[in-house]
Structures are given as structure tokens and as C-alpha cells.
């Protein structure tokens, strides 16, 4: 066991952090938000140049052969910067599905395009009634004369509004909420029968409601057997979100400490008040626990045993959710009113943290799952 970064990993970390430091100050970020897509195509191109967009793909497939640790490094830096580009949707989610489910021909077609920045994809999976149940898929896929067509409604599709191609989960067989009978399909986002409605989330990142009406689709892997891949990619995504959350929390803590050191009340810096000192320490404790669980999530994201992987990622999401909830609320409270304004950055971190808490299941959801699985320690 070794938590030190390799030379390549250190380089990656430095370059991503530098990029974020140079291009993601508060005013720059505000400008990206004012564009139609809500993020910077220039930076997207930079990510491609730096190899970030192909980071987790095999070198033979146009990528850089990075693993969960590399994704962790990027996501933590992106969390610190509140980066807006749809990296998570395209590279982590869609990229993950392609890595695990696509044929080699499909990978050869799509991965280099993603890596070069010319193709953006999104994962259209969740549905209105599904809440956090990954198997609750009612969108249907029907085969006829060798070709598949999809009909249904997808909701809260991250970065779905401007994606070029979509990966859509659809039921080919089985009862509602059955794990068996779910397929993954590639759909051209511009195809007839696809209609999209984009909108901002609370943290100004974007999502879409997408409806499919008899839309032609290409299977990604064996139709009906996709649930294990979805569960696996969502667990990988949870590891990535955990890393992003650690970046968000660490940044919130730093701005809070800065504020405590500089803001004066009753004739002294408020950071001299013991109560605020102890609360800043409790934030640190929560963050370090979250950071540890982000490592654990990263370590377990590729675990072969799906049950062990699920336990670990559930545990990570619980810790991230609880730590993030506490750190966010305390960061606002210790700032007082100014923390609640759009003009000050801590509130934006707080909102991002709140979204991360909700993505792919909140802490209560994962706690119920983990408890049902018997917890972490064999009894």
C-alpha cells in the first residue's frame, strides 16, 4: 500500500491543478456560465490536448490507459475549481459504459472521438419513477427485422442537452425494476424521434429531459444483460464523484479558514473564537474521513466481486454525503450572510456539494442498501 503519486500521476495532478488555477477563477467561471452551453469549448479542447478526455481508455484505443487513481486526481482538481465542462458525463459515465460494454469496433469508432474532444456523449438512464433504483427502467427497446428502436422518457440526463450521441438504457424483457432484461443502446442525439429539453441544475451544470419515440438504436453489448455493467459504471462514477466532493470540501474549508483569519468582529479575527476554531476542526475531521473514503472508493471501483464493490461504494457515498452535508452547512454558517450570496464562492461550492449528495442516491439510500447487505464487517 502506497499513497504516494507516481511521477506520471504527479505530473497529471500538477498540470490539471495548474489549468484549473489559471482558468477557473470566479470571474472566468462566470463567463463560461454565460455561454449557451454553460461551459468553455476552449477548455474542452485543452482537456483533449492534455489527454484528459481519453485518460481512462486503453492506449490501443486512443486513450492513455489511466485507471481509477488518475480519474480521482482529475475529479478532485475539477471539484476544487467547480469545473463546468461535461467531463463526468462524457468520460466517466459514457466512457465507462463504452469501456465495459461496447464491442471493439464500437470502441474503435467512439473512444478516439471522445479522446480528441470531437464527440460528446451522455448516459440517458434515470426515469421519473425510478428515484435511485438503477433497475427501474421502463423505456422499452424492441427488435424488428434485425434493428432496434427505443421508446420512452429519460430524465435528469447529465449534459444530455448538447451531447452528440446518447447511451440509453431500455428494457427488452422482464418486469418493472427487474435487473434482468435491461439493455444499453447507442442513439444518435439528432435522430428523428428524439426530443430534448435542457435546463440548469441548482449548481448551474446542465441536464436534460429526453424523450424517445421509436428511435433507431444500436445495442451496446448483449441486450437484456446490461444491468451489471450499469451497476459497475455507476460505482466507478461514485468513486469519481467522491474525489470531486473531496475537492469541493477542501476548497470550502480553505475559503472558510481564510474568512476566519481575516473577518473581524468585536475587535478581533473571528478565527480567534474558540467555538469557531473547534467547528473548523470538526470540518477537517469530516473532510479527512471523506478523503479516506474517496481513496477506498478508488481502490474498490475495479473490484471484481460486485457485492464487495457495491458495499464499498455504498459506504463511500454515505461518508461523502454525510461529510459533505456537514462541511457545506458549516462553511455557510461560519461565513454568515456573505456565504449565502451569489457573489461569494463558498455558496457555489455548497450547491455543487448538495448536487453530489443527490446524484446516484443520497446517503440514506446507500445506507439502506449497505445495511441490507449486512454492513462492511463480516459478522
Amino acid at each position, binding site marked *: 500500500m502506497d499513497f504516494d503519486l507516481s511521477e506520471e500521476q504527479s505530473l497529471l495532478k500538477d498540470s490539471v491543478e495548474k489549468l484549473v488555477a489559471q482558468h477557473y477563477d470566479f470571474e472566468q467561471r462566470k463567463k463560461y456560465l454565460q455561454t449557451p452551453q454553460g461551459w468553455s469549448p476552449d477548455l474542452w479542447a485543452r482537456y483533449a490536448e492534455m489527454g484528459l478526455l481519453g485518460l481512462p481508455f486503453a492506449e490501443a484505443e486512443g486513450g492513455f490507459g489511466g485507471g481509477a487513481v488518475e480519474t480521482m486526481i482529475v475529479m478532485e482538481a475539477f471539484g476544487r475549481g467547480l469545473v463546468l465542462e461535461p467531463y463526468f458525463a462524457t468520460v466517466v459515465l459514457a466512457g465507462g459504459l463504452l469501456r465495459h460494454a461496447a464491442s471493439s469496433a464500437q470502441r474503435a469508432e467512439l473512444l478516439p472521438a471522445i479522446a480528441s474532444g470531437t464527440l460528446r456523449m451522455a448516459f440517458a438512464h434515470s426515469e421519473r419513477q425510478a428515484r435511485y433504483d438503477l433497475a427501474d427502467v421502463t423505456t422499452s427497446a424492441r427488435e424488428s427485422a434485425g434493428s432496434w428502436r427505443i421508446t420512452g422518457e429519460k430524465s*435528469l440526463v447529465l449534459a444530455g442537452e448538447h451531447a452528440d450521441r446518447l447511451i440509453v438504457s431500455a428494457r427488452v424483457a422482464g418486469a418493472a425494476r427487474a435487473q434482468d432484461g435491461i439493455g444499453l443502446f447507442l442513439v444518435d442525439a439528432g435522430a428523428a424521434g428524439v426530443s430534448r429539453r435542457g435546463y440548469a*441544475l*441548482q449548481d448551474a451544470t446542465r441536464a436534460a429531459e429526453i424523450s424517445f419515440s421509436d428511435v433507431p438504436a444500436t445495442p451496446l453489448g448483449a441486450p437484456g444483460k446490461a444491468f451489471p455493467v450499469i451497476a459497475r459504471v455507476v460505482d466507478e462514477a461514485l468513486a469519481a464523484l467522491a474525489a470531486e466532493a473531496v475537492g469541493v470540501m477542501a476548497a470550502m474549508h480553505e475559503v472558510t479558514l481564510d474568512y476566519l483569519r481575516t473577518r473581524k468582529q468585536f475587535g478581533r479575527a473571528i478565527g480567534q473564537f474558540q467555538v469557531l476554531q473547534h467547528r473548523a476542526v470538526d470540518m477537517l475531521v469530516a473532510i479527512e474521513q471523506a478523503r479516506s473514503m474517496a481513496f477506498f472508493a478508488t481502490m474498490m471501483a475495479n473490484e471484481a466481486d460486485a457485492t464487495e464493490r457495491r458495499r464499498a461504494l455504498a459506504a463511500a457515498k454515505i461518508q461523502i454525503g454525510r461529510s459533505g452535508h456537514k462541511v457545506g452547512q458549516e462553511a455557510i454558517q461560519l461565513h454568515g450572510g456573505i456565504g*449565502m450570496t*451569489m457573489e461569494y464562492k463558498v455558496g457555489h461550492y455548497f450547491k455543487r456539494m448538495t448536487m453530489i449528495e443527490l446524484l446516484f442516491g443520497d446517503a440514506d439510500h446507500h445506507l439502506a442498501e449497505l445495511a441490507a447487505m449486512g454492513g462492511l464487517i463480516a459478522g
Partner: protein
Amino acid sequence: MDLAFTKEEIAFRDEMRHFFRNEFPEAIRRKASEGRHLSREEMVTAQRFLNARGLAVPHWPQAWGGRDWSSIQTYFYQDEMQQANVPSPLPFNVSMVGPVIATFGNERQKHEFLPQIANLDIWFCQGFSEPGSGSDLASLRTSAKRDGDHYLVNGQKTWTTLAQYADWIFCLVRTDPAAKPQEGISFLLIDMKSPGITVRPIQTIDGGHEVNEVFFDDVKVPLENLVGQENKGWDYAKFLLGNERTGIARVGTSKERIRRIKELAALERSGDQRVIDNPRFREKLAAVEVELKALELTQLRVVANERRAQHGKPDPASSILKIKGSEIQQATTELLMDVVGPYAMPYQPQFEEGWNEPPIGPDYAAPAAPTYFNWRKISIYGGSNEIQRNIIAKAILGL
């Protein structure tokens, strides 16, 4: 000791309940229940409706519209109003500047202002906080210098709630820079239309515009707009801030929020179960209900004691109303987040404006996150919960 309400008390409560639930304009109540912001016009309509029926300023002196109610009557009035989602009369008018003018103002000020304040013909906002003086109010720096028949006011106020709607602002200003911090402060009424006043909106993280910065640049304020004596403003401010002992817990509001949460949790499903049927959710909710019931009783204890000691030392129990009340109100916002789940994520400010697009997810989900974000303020404003604890430690516990 009689721990039941008397028949008369119950009759009064039922009268209030009936009025607020059956006579008050329902559209306004519904909008409030859905967590949407009311427009200025709706707030004015609401207050005038109450004022016309003698229900806007019941706690004022009888000469100016007060009702001479017992503390328990006032409690029922507030509680039933909150439970019915009836918007409270503008606190800056009826709980803050009104009582100050009624107690310390001169006769001309009383006649000129009090009726208009009660009827919301004049909308007041509050000019206390400044960028450098939040919890440490006495460090305020906005100055008012005598210059003939007027003061010249310069400085900046912040966190000025609904200044964008206000006709007047009541301000704490420094009239004697040489005096000790708390001794050189005066209480001024300032017309918001005065030249030299600029209002700059502060957008909050929920996307709303509720608070503002107010800048004063050589603003002329007639000397006659001074309330009470010059340099005694700190006393009036303390009077004003100490006035609101019980409403601050907002028990009625939290009761109504929990009812609403139960209603929505019965609509929302998770798998083959309604959210309300999930035992973990029910227990979380019940735990908050228990704290709320305890707070309600705590409030009633304070109310009952006020009857005896109208201006005496506050009941130790009163000191916890702000802390526990804010915790519970904030907990209800988190429970609503739990109910709507992932549909707290879409940002849908358009639900405020009669937008025609269908909502993303259930129509009741849109206010969940903005309210969660916005209500973080409850433990910050009006003396943060940390300041409250400092005060209690000294005043009640003698530490």
C-alpha cells in the same frame, strides 16, 4: 397548574383558525404553502386585509390599533396564522419600527406614520447591519452629521431585506463619533426616495433577490425624522430586538411544513412503496415532530410566564426558542429534500412567474432546494445561533 387550555382560550383559537383558514384570500395562502415567494402586491393585499379586520397590529397600544390581548391570545393569533400559511404582517413595520415609534416617537410621528405602517401604506425596511458590523452591531459606521435643519447621512447598510419594495428605511446611524460605540448612535427614519440613496440587489444562492445593499451618499434627512433622543438609538434598537420573543420559533410554520411534507411524501414513490411508508423516513420525520412538540410547549411556557412578568426578566426557556426553532425549520427543509429526492436538482425559478412549461419532475419539487439553501439564513440572521449561545451563556448561565 392547569395544563389544558381554558374554554375561552380554545374559543379564541378556533375563531382565529376559522378566520385564517376560511376568510383569508386562499390564493395567497396556497402560493405560500407551495413555497413560492409572494409579490409586493400580494403582501400589501394580505396586510390590508388583516388590518381592515383589526388583525395587523394586535400587539400595539390600543390607541393605534392594538387589541390588548393576553399573551396566549397573541400566541394563538401567530400560530394559527402560520399554520394557515397566511403571511405575517411585514415585521419591519409591525414588530420593529411601529413599536419603536409608538413608544419613543413624538406625537407628530405617531400620527403621521403609525396608521400607514399598520396598513402597509408605507413599507419600511431595516437599516441596521453594515458590511463591517454583522454580529457586532455596535461597530456600525454610517454617519449622520447635523447640517442646519437636516442630517447629512453617509455610509452603507447591507442585508436590507426587501429594500427594493420599501418606501422608507429606519436606520441606526452614528451621530457622535467621539462617544463609546454604543452611545453615539441615533435612530433615523429616511425616505427611500431621498436623493443620494442607491439600492443594489444581492442575489442569494437560491437564486432569489430578497436582500440588498443600501448606499447613502450625502443624503439629507430632516431633523424631525429623528426618533426619540439623539445618541439614544442603541436603547431603541435593543427595545426593538427584544420585542420579538416568541414568534421567532415559528412553531406554526414548522407544523404546517410537516403537514405539507407528509402530504407530498404520500404522493412520491420509491420502488413499490410510498416515501411516507418508508420506516426510516417516518422515523426521521417523527423525530423532528417530537422536537417541534417540545418547542411548542416551551413556547407556551414562555407565553404563560409573560402574562405574569410582562417586562420582567425573560424566562430561561425563551432563550432557546431561536436556536431550537431555527434548527427545526432547517430540518424541515432537509426533509422536503428527502421527499423529492433527485428532483431537488433542477433549477426552476420560472415556477415563480407563471411559466407555462411543464415542471421537471413533480410540480412540488421546484422550491425544495431553493428553500433548503435560503433557510440556511435562519441560523444566521437576527443574531446568529453562535451569538445566541454567547448571550445565554452569560445572561442565563452566568458563565
